[in-house]
């Protein structure tokens, strides 16, 4: 693709928003349209710079993550499996599954996602039920969050629930666009459905994922245009519930106490992880100790390749590496926000906003935990930390955003340079209503 095209394309939505333009395609003609699009793609790619920005940052973070997983897990892998590469190779395999999944997902139409929303959410909840209520559930570090199916790698259905909740929110809230301010029409059903899913996750004990899910719901509602007073109310309720849940388990209480009073934290107990994370970051300084030279990974820092991988990044690559990760997160956020701004489709907007909260929000929460600014919640760093289900579900989520971005862009009045093409397409699809056809 040609650079000039990309620049033009990215500016287009701003200009086009001032004028009427072709709108969402009825599903009945979508097959025909897709055929046309494929043909066009050969001549001139119909995707915006947002698409490539998001795809590029995502792939870079996955590659960077693999590198850091290799470095941080090498010692633990050697001890557990007598091969320094075991965790890395497993993570690489997940990436090899997840990236094609992302590319395939990016090609699917929004209608597919809308239709699959209920199925994915219901499927995720069903699997989560298996986790919490059947012997197939596996408890790790006090959290019953894993599903062991035969000899398959353990799965985290809560990650699938995230995808389901995101899709459901997009589907439901976009449908309720006009009644978004009505409590019983929009907020009430949302609370009921997503609340069920969140409760299922919370029963398993995964407070971190529950909090992220609550964040996803709040973010979706925010970008769906819910009145701010509803949002404030919901936030207050969620916070209360979250705190009560947190206090219901002694291991969480001690974690929170350790956070609130670091000086009284038992050095070898709850404060251990944070303290060793600090030592790692301090060791790194500005320039880092160099890739592979972390000391924290020598059994000092628990969850060194998952929840605390940021400490190893900060140690090996220094302040520079830490800031790089933060910049990547900002770029990711900007890419999501540009896609939100570019799309007129409320489904795309709500889904992208949810995934923004998921990926960017979770990343910021993870780093804040490592930096001791939040209690230890147990959430990994998206796209970077080791963890198969989490990586695949994140990549799937970004694939969904890419597909929505692609759809928005192809509907854009790109062909100002190709008026003929534009005219032809307009003729074929015809003027449609603003609201997607039901």
């Amino acid at each position: 693709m040609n650079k000039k095209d990309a620049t033009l394309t990215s500016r287009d939505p701003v200009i086009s928003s001032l004028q009427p333009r072709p709108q969402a395609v009825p599903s009945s003609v979508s097959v025909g349209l897709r055929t046309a699009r494929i043909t066009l793609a050969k001549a001139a790619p119909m995707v915006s710079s947002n698409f490539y920005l998001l795809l590029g940052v995502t792939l870079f973070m996955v590659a960077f993550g693999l590198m850091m997983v290799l470095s941080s897990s090498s010692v633990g892998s050697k001890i557990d499996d007598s091969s320094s590469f075991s965790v890395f190779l497993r993570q690489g395999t997940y990436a090899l599954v997840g990236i094609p999944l992302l590319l395939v997902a990016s090609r699917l139409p929004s209608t597919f996602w809308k239709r699959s929303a209920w199925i994915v959410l219901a499927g995720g909840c069903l699997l989560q039920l298996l986790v919490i209520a059947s012997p197939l559930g596996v408890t790790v570090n006090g959290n019953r969050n894993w599903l062991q199916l035969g000899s398959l790698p353990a799965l985290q259905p809560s990650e699938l629930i995230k995808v389901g909740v995101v899709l459901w929110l997009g589907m439901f809230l976009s449908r309720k666009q006009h009644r978004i301010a009505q409590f019983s029409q929009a907020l009430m059903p949302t609370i009921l459905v997503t609340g069920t899913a969140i409760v299922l996750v919370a029963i398993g004990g995964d407070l971190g994922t529950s909090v992220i899910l609550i964040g996803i719901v709040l973010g979706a509602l925010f970008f769906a245009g819910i009145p701010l007073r509803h949002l404030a109310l919901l936030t207050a309720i969620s916070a209360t519930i979250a705190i009560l849940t947190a206090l219901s388990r002694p291991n969480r209480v001690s974690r929170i106490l350790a956070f609130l009073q670091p000086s009284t934290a038992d050095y070898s107990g709850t404060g251990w992880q944070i303290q060793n994370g600090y030592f790692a970051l301090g060791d790194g300084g500005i320039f880092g100790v160099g890739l592979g030279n972390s000391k924290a990974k020598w059994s000092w820092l628990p969850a060194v390749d998952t929840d605390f991988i940021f400490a190893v990044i900060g140690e090996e690559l220094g302040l520079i590496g830490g800031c790089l990760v933060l910049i990547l997160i900002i770029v990711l956020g900007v890419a999501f926000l540009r896609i939100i701004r570019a799309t007129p489709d409320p489904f795309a907007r709500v889904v992208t906003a949810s995934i923004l909260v998921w990926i960017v929000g979770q990343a910021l929460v993870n780093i804040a935990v490592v930096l001791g600014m939040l209690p230890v919640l147990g959430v990994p760093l998206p796209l970077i930390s080791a963890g198969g289900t989490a990586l695949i579900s994140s990549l799937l989520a970004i694939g969904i955003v890419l597909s929505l971005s692609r759809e928005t862009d192809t509907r854009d009045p790109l062909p100002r340079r190709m008026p003929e093409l534009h005219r032809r397409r307009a003729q074929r699809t015809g003027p449609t209503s603003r609201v997607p056809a039901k």
Partner: protein
Amino acid sequence: MTSRRSTRNRIAVAIVVITAVVAVLVVKLVDIQVVQASSLNAQAYDKLSVGQTLYGARGDIVDSTGTVLATTVIRYDVTASPKDVADFTQTVNGAAVDVTPLQAAGQIGAITGQSATDVYALLTADPSSGYALIIKAIDLDKYNAIRALSIPWLQYQTNPQRVYPNGSVGGNLVGYLGADSSTNGGLEAKENQCLTGSDGSQTYEKGADGVAIPNTLVVDKAPVTGGTVMTTIDSDLQYYSQQVLAQQVTSTKAEWGSVVVEEVKTGKLLAVAQYPTPDPNNLDATDPHFWGATAFSDPFEPGSTFKAESAAALIDAGKATPATQVLVPYRYKAPGGSVITDSENHDPAQWTLTGVIQESSNVGISILSAMLTTQQRYDYMKKFHLGEKTEVNFPGESEGILGDPSQWGEQTLYNSSFGQGVTTTAAQIASIYQTLGNGGVRLPVSLVSGCKAADGSVSEQPSTQGEQVISSDAAQQTVNMMQSVVTGGYAASLLKIPGYNVAAKTGTAEVSNGQGAYGGGYLTSVAGLAPAEAPQYVVSVNLMKPVTIEDGSAAAPVFQKIMSQVLQKYRVLPSTTPAVNYPTSY
């Protein structure tokens, strides 16, 4: 109706929130990684760093050819942490096997030679303790065997041990290590400063499981190995001397014996043998009195070997020649009233000074020595460095006793000419003969030829500055007179060495009983030089209170064998001139 403006506003809010959060995180990150970094690193270092001692091994003691007489080896102490003793998993032929502490005790015991119950008792004596010694100072093979058991609650400490590979060869010289440096003995004590290494230290950082993190090892202070003490001893000759001496001491039922072999041209001691001699590896098998070197520490009245000194003094002072004639009765009543007798009854004999030496006449040498004043005789003794320690300055070395000549009694006035009433050490006797053999030039006696530091530099080299004690002529004439002892004295047949002219003097000294009287045995001795025409080696043999033979004949075979060995070993050319044959009578 959602307006695009509303969306834009909310996007703006999202941008502000994300930016603000990231800004806060960056500030915190800078705070941790830059502002607090040094204090965090100090805390982490305290937690991660492990200091280790690097042993600067004690140096070796070697003989003149480099044969190691004393060295340091690394041994290992095995300790356990009883409070951690528990079952553990062992991999046997690829399969994981659960091992109980009692089974582990059996495995340890099978390697160390302890019984399973003994080891188990050590492990369980104090279950709350973090320390229990299992065994000390095991060698590398056993250490590796125990390590291979992969018992998690065992710890290992290196324990440098002193060993003496040649055992009792030179055991009297090498000495021993005591509980601290003040209780060391022999060269271990004398050369302690040279031998002592300095320990170094290193620090590494460890993982939480104790593993050393790669690239964190820092040597804070390099260890320095102690210096090597190079002795003048020839361990082969030392061994031979000890063997021959041991045989003779045993067969004559003597209390003890000593042999000193000294090189005439250098003053180096080639062998300082004694019997009994200690094995520093097993000191307790030997009477503590013999843990040191008796040749330095145990003075005795030398007896007739001392007549050579008296004769040399007479000749050097111009008071006599080898042919000086003297009428020697068996019993002589001196002007002061004291009475001297020879060992064997004889008619008054017309002997020359040579004859007096050959016949070892106490009367003859007493009469002739009276030609020198007491002070002159004392001064000669002092010039031969009698009454003072040799340059070796061996731990416990005795000066011998000459006493104050002005206080010598009437008897001592004469007795001192034939080696009674004064005491010398075996080393001092050897030094007298070295002086005689070296044209009257006394060389400092040396046992240590230097201390070679780890960097190869050599210090403590002994002085080679000689002193002319008597004239060259006097010295050679004295040696020549002693050839008659080997050609015609009572022990001649025992002293002869085919092919070489040998000069020697026997001695049979009465031993003081410690209460001012003589009685209860003799010190029999031979001291001599070879080849007599150009002396190269001194051999001095002393046997204390032999029972089966009570005169110089007891020591003579030892002298003959050792001198033969020396001449052979150092490839001394046989004599080409006949033995000097001064007239012994007139």
